[in-house]
């Protein structure tokens, strides 16, 4: 087989016309200026195919030289004769191994993120010293409430209301066996919620006080929040969110956690809330307070939440309130009232 080709020596961009022939398993070339070359087929590697059946080849693998053979059929002929012809464009075994290892790594990271983080976060949270917990709590409360209220949060206080709340807090905290005193405060905001924060802090929003109808209901909600503190859930949540956000943003792109985290957090959070309801009932029992108010608080919240679950409940951070009420009643107990009517009125009037 004789044909002409353009040869580039890799030293200058000047093309040289050469006459090619295949002799046995060697490709030989004679340039117009009389120089001759011989390349073994085993060293020839294709750089790319050319339209019409030609090819650009590297006569010696790794060298900068190039041969551009336009002749039709050259590509097929060389592919047949040269064992390493497709070496450059083939998905090599090394590449394959890298992809397989990478997939295994991604799978391991996903499993860790989905299952390992919720398991590890509470363990890490328990190892965090109380001083760090308290320091973090002060900062989280400050930044979260400022973000929520759009300015400095207004804490509600008056002598009878604060005294009644402190009395309830003292009895429930003692029943919760917490290692440090708990701060329960009321913030003027329409949010119908209460939150537990690191550093043994509980914040009740006035929207919740306006929704609940008696002191037993409030005791149930605060017992639930103390249950979170006893389990170190707030610190565990901060740790889990930080790990999730970092890993997800890293793997999927900055900001991707905005899509994934609400779902991931909600799925994990529902299990935590169910367990915390049980802890809340146990705290009420140890304090000698009836758990019926806790169940009624959930029913009251269910009445408030008329829209029903959004996105098939996938984004709900808590189980449906009526289900929670039924679960609380199933393990409920009798006891005395959490506070007098006067005390409840005093607490309710804190923000008024």
């Amino acid at each position: 087989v004789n044909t002409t080709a353009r040869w580039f020596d890799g030293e200058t961009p000047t093309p040289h016309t050469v006459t090619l022939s295949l002799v046995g398993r060697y490709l030989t070339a004679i340039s117009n200026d009389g120089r001759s070359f011989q390349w073994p087929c085993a060293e020839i590697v294709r750089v790319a195919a050319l339209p019409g059946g030609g090819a650009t080849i590297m006569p010696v693998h790794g060298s900068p030289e190039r041969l551009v053979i336009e002749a039709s059929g050259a590509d097929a002929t060389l592919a047949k004769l040269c064992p390493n012809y497709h070496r450059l464009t083939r998905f090599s075994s090394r590449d394959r191994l890298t992809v397989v290892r990478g997939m295994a790594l991604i799978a391991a990271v996903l499993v860790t993120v989905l299952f390992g983080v919720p398991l590890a976060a509470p363990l890490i949270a328990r190892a965090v010293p109380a001083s760090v917990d308290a320091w973090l709590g002060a900062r989280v409360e400050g930044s979260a409430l400022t973000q929520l209220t759009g300015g400095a949060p207004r804490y509600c206080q008056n002598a009878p209301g604060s005294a009644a709340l402190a009395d309830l807090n003292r009895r429930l905290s003692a029943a919760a066996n917490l290692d440090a005193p708990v701060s329960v405060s009321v913030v003027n905001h329409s949010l119908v919620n209460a939150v537990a924060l690191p550093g043994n802090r509980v914040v009740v929003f006035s929207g919740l006080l306006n929704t609940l109808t008696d002191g037993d209901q409030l005791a149930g909600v605060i017992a639930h929040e103390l249950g979170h503190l006893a389990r170190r859930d707030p610190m565990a949540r901060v740790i889990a969110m930080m790990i999730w956000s970092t890993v997800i943003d890293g793997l999927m792109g900055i900001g991707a956690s905005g899509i994934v985290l609400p779902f991931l957090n909600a799925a994990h959070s529902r299990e935590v809330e169910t367990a915390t309801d049980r802890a809340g009932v146990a705290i009420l029992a140890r304090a000698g307070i009836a758990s019926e108010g806790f169940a009624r608080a959930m029913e009251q919240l269910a009445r408030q939440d008329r829209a029903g679950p959004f996105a098939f409940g996938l984004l709900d951070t808590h189980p449906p309130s009526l289900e929670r009420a039924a679960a609380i009643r199933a393990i409920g107990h009798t006891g005395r009232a959490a506070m007098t009517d006067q005390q409840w009125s005093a607490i309710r009037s804190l923000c008024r």
Partner: protein
Amino acid sequence: MASTWRSDDREAEWFMADSPRVLRFTLEAKTWPALKLGLKLAIWRVLTLTLYWFWAETRIRRAFAHASALGGDRFEYSGTGLQMFIGFLIAMGIILPMRGLFHLGSVLGASAWLAPVEGLFWIGLWSLALPFFAWRYRMTNLSWRAIRFGFDGGFARYLRAMALPFLLGLLTLGILWPRFMLIRRRWLVAHTRFGSERFAVQAGPATALWPWYIAAGAAAAAFLLIGVLVATGLNPSVSGLLFLATFTAWVFSLAGMYFAIDRVVANETLIAGARIRAWYSIWPLPLRYASWLFALLLPLALFGPTLAAVASLVPAQQMLALVHLSWGLMLLGWVVVLFTWSLPFVRLPILRHMLRHSALDGRLLIEQVGAGDPGRGGNDALAALWPVA
């Protein structure tokens, strides 16, 4: 010839006339094989949990480089998927800890002063570091007539040169951003070599950027007018449509600006005694951003009214999740942009248009070009994160 920002139609016609002293760029690639390649690579990406992207991107770059030719001689791309993958891992080693630190800072309530620092970090990463590493990686892996291109610029020198234009771009709220991009491109080209021969950039006045300034000014005026109309009681759906139309026009002009900068610098560039000429039209090119824009705006257009409707129904604690979701959908839009952008059949018509309207003018003094050390290129970390570069 399509209309251009420069009055160079006659010059363009002259180039089209196959003058003997002109080396033309060509692209010999068909849409159907590009479509098949794109679909095949997309399937592989799904099967490998997107990990095949690095190898897929390499195959696309190889195919496109080899389909592109100057004076009938094809280009060659020698980067590998493995290099890009290793680069990605290195980049993750930088980005993940930084992301974790910023997140920790915001949890600790330092978001007031940390947010601008974080913003500056990510903007700097995207507009300073990534373009530099992407350019260096590509240039050191490109060759023509068996001579490798190379890159001599050091990152520290680059940062020193770019610091002022970059900060001016930010401090003027983007007004001087195109100027920064122009300076950045000139610097990168001026530190690129073909073998032993360095590219030279003869910077001239960037008059081609004026349409961008006019478009940006018109968009700002339009946004202001819409605000005034809303304040005087204009129907919200009408003002929404006006906003969308203005935003669309602004994004198109932004995309046009990118190509304008490409073309300005191309026409300022000399190599081995020859000058690059580019006369591709600017405005049709942003059409490649149609999918970009569509993917970005559709979730917004659909989700905005939905969010407003749902907001009145759902309890307050779910609002936060909804806000997260809305941001998520926007980001999804960007993901779609990046994904569609990387498909070869999306890039092909644009590249073809650009190459068909570019040439090397003057006799290329190839005898003075020797093989040079391409310079450091290797596993350049951040190149992997710059699929749109």
